[in-house]
């Protein structure tokens, strides 16, 4: 029997116009945690989709599972062979209960008429949940759960299926650090049980923490496979992007100007309460906190998508009444949402159409009709300045990789020339190279006089990019500090409301807190 549970060699995948994978190799040993890394668009997700049978690779590749020709052409084949894939966007059924979500798929195909024994179904689910040390009501519908809990359900399902290989595509991007630790423990348990894990993430620290070996892809090509001990972070970054990148802490004191934007007494029932803060010219303000602390809701209320119950906002000394995104945009406020594929982009439409959507009214000729030349020029300008690849303005946005999609969203708002930009998890699922580009871009915007508020759960990012930090917890701003005075521990203490230990199955936090002056 081969050492390797998975052997993929000479894998190529061509999409119309794009060679997403070019002679790529991925070999995973039994019981190892194997990281798959690469920049946005490097082909990681595509490789996983080939592995899962969603895409068939071009002819000529070799794909062995447990030493045998895999013969996987649809997801079902992979499932039956013991491959479980936890996609970044999860694969749950919001309308079904936890127990059903864990159970479903089992035998569904072979024995559709099998009678469901709700008792044994729950037994099975319970067992998997226990292994993960989780306590969630099995009858609860999944739509009622937090993202972190949902993530764990996916893992429980993989366990319940007796999987031999579990693929996790950016599993930590929506988890709080406590939850991430928990996930690490789960991965350690999987390893002990001889289950192999493929782990995709853009967070290098994390990769070094959990994985045994790493495979690096760049621009659809195979760069190499390394043991975690053979390589350090800097070398890895160089392999990924082909150059050296530094991701360093912001230690400069910002050159802060006058107050440009303020929020007073902002409250919305069940979302956030008593929010007061201001933003000055020349600074990047970060809002951080745990997932579910109400940051996104706050941002979306400022942007007018969900109206706040009370409170006022002032921009450049003017009181604004904003009751819709349209009002916000008219008043120069832009918001880049965290849910890129749902809220950020119209995936089925072209890059041009996306980029010019907020400003389309200004791109009209004297007949009040869209001037396609101006439109194209504008788009090309941003494609160039943001280095969107491939640089095809007519390409549908869903054909771009995650990072390039985010660039399109940013380009869209740059074209609108906002006075204030709120950007929610700006680098979620984006590789290092693109990350630093985006960070530079934010700085450039601030220098040009645009106010920038950045919401991020990624503390290194917060510490590197922002000038001032607000920490939110359970719907309130519980702390404020200048970035030069901040460190990760300080922030986490506030975010977690001290007494650190949190349960994944329960995002409530006990009530001892260290109060920071606001």
């Amino acid at each position, binding site marked *: 029997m081969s050492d390797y549970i998975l052997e993929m060699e000479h894998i190529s995948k061509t999409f119309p*116009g794009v060679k997403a994978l070019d002679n790529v190799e991925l070999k995973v040993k039994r019981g190892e945690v194997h990281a798959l890394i690469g920049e946005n668009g490097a082909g990681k997700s595509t490789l996983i989709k080939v592995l899962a049978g969603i895409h068939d690779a071009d002819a000529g590749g070799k794909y062995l599972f447990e030493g045998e020709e895999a013969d996987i052409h649809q997801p079902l084949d992979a499932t039956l062979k013991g491959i479980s894939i936890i996609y970044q966007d999860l694969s749950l059924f919001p309308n079904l209960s936890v127990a059903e979500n864990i159970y479903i798929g089992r035998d569904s195909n072979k024995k559709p008429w099998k009678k469901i024994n709700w008792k044994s179904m729950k037994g099975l689910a319970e067992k998997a949940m226990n292994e993960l040390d989780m306590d969630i009501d099995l009858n609860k519908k999944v739509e009622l759960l937090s993202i972190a809990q949902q993530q764990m359900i996916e893992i429980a399902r993989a366990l319940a299926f007796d999987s031999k290989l579990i693929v996790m595509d950016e599993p930590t991007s929506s988890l709080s650090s406590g939850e991430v630790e928990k996930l690490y423990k789960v991965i350690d348990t999987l390893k002990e049980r001889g289950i192999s894990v493929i782990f995709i993430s853009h967070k290098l620290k994390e990769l070094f923490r959990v994985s045994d070996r790493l495979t690096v892809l760049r621009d659809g090509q195979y760069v190499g496979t390394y043991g975690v001990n053979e390589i350090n972070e800097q070398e890895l970054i160089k392999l990924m992007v082909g150059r050296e990148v530094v991701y360093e802490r912001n230690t400069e004191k910002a050159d802060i100007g006058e107050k440009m934007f303020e929020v007073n007494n902002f409250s919305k029932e069940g979302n956030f309460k008593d929010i007061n803060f201001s933003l000055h010219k020349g600074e990047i303000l970060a809002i951080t906190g745990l997932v579910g602390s109400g940051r996104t809701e706050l941002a979306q209320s400022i942007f007018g998508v969900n109206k706040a119950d009370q409170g006022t906002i002032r921009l450049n000394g003017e009181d604004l009444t904003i009751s819709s*995104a349209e009002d916000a945009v008219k008043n120069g406020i832009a918001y880049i949402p965290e849910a890129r594929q*749902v809220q950020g982009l*119209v995936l*089925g*439409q072209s890059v041009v159409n996306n980029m010019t959507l*907020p400003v*389309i009214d200004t791109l009209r000729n004297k007949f009040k009709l869209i001037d396609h030349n101006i439109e194209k020029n504008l788009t090309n300008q941003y494609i160039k300045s943001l280095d969107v690849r491939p640089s095809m303005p007519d390409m549908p946005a869903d*054909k771009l990789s995650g990072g390039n999609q985010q660039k399109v969203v940013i380009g869209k708002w740059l074209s609108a020339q906002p006075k204030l930009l709120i950007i929610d998890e700006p680098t979620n699922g984006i590789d290092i190279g693109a990350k630093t580009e985006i960070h530079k871009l934010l700085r450039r915007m601030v220098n040009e006089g645009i106010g920038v508020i950045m919401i991020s759960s990624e503390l290194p990012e917060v510490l590197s990019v922002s000038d001032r930090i607000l920490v939110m917890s359970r719907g309130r701003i519980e702390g404020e500090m200048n970035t030069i005075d901040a460190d990760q521990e300080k922030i986490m203490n506030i975010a977690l409301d001290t007494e650190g230990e949190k349960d994944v199955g329960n995002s409530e936090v006990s009530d001892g807190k260290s109060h920071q002056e606001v």
Partner: protein
Amino acid sequence: MNMKLSKESVLGLIALGIFVGMGLFTPGFFSSSNLNNMMFQLPEFGLIALGMMVVIVTGGIDLSITYIAAFSGVGAALMMTNGFGILPAIVVGILFALACGAFNGTVVSKIGVPPILVTLGTMVLFEGVILAITSGNAISGFPDAYGLIGNGYYMGIIPVSLLIFIFFIILTAVLLNKSTWGRRVYMYGSNDIATMFSGVKNSKVLMKVYLYASLLAAVSAIIMTSRYNSVKVDLGSSYLLQSVAAAVLGGTDIHGGYGKVMGTIYAVLIFQFIRNGLNLMDVHSSLVDVVIGAILIIVLTLNFFSDKFSRRKGESSSEKTA
């Protein structure tokens, strides 16, 4: 250089093929009186199909559209039979339709009820209102001049109604492709949430969609009432499902986000040629329905296989649309 024809062009060729084929095999199909007939028959259905298509591009459907047309016709007819002039009658007819469209638009865009449900309800509702107004009777007896809209010629050769139709084809194409509203319609149809997050007021876009569809219904109603010299509760009701079929056959994505005016027009032509040709051939009218249903399914099945085929061949088709 991409030689691959767009979906719409292929459909255009099919329409042409059917036209020629019918002409060769059906005596009288190419006769000038028959061609003339077809020119008169096209606009009323074509306008409704266009209206339906615009709604479908937003991912919706308007099951009430033919009753809006009938309601609008009733409005115009009541004016004329009560001694008002043609122009005020037309205006009132259009206003009646816009009122219906606004009602649909409000429930769809403000309350957010799925269009298929709203219009399922308003279809019954509008029908009821017309029945209540007319007691089910036909209203007729319009001024002779009114008849010219549906029956008259411009410069002795081109039917006035056809000119009106062409005007609205161009208008719709320009609005959809060149106006910012049209752009928003497509964007909304593809992803309403992201569109809203881009600062687009979706309710306004939608409201205009339902208003525009009802405007087209009203124009169709004016042509129909003028052509038939009367109006009754079921005016044009047979066009309802046909118009959905034409829009979809024309390539409009029933889930929204895609749809071309020309595609719909080609589909309307195909239906017209087939109906007319088969009628001339004395084929039982029930079988004409069968043929139309079969064509719908066959064309979409062929689409499926040709997509599959071209994907397999790895031909680039998606990125070179410009």
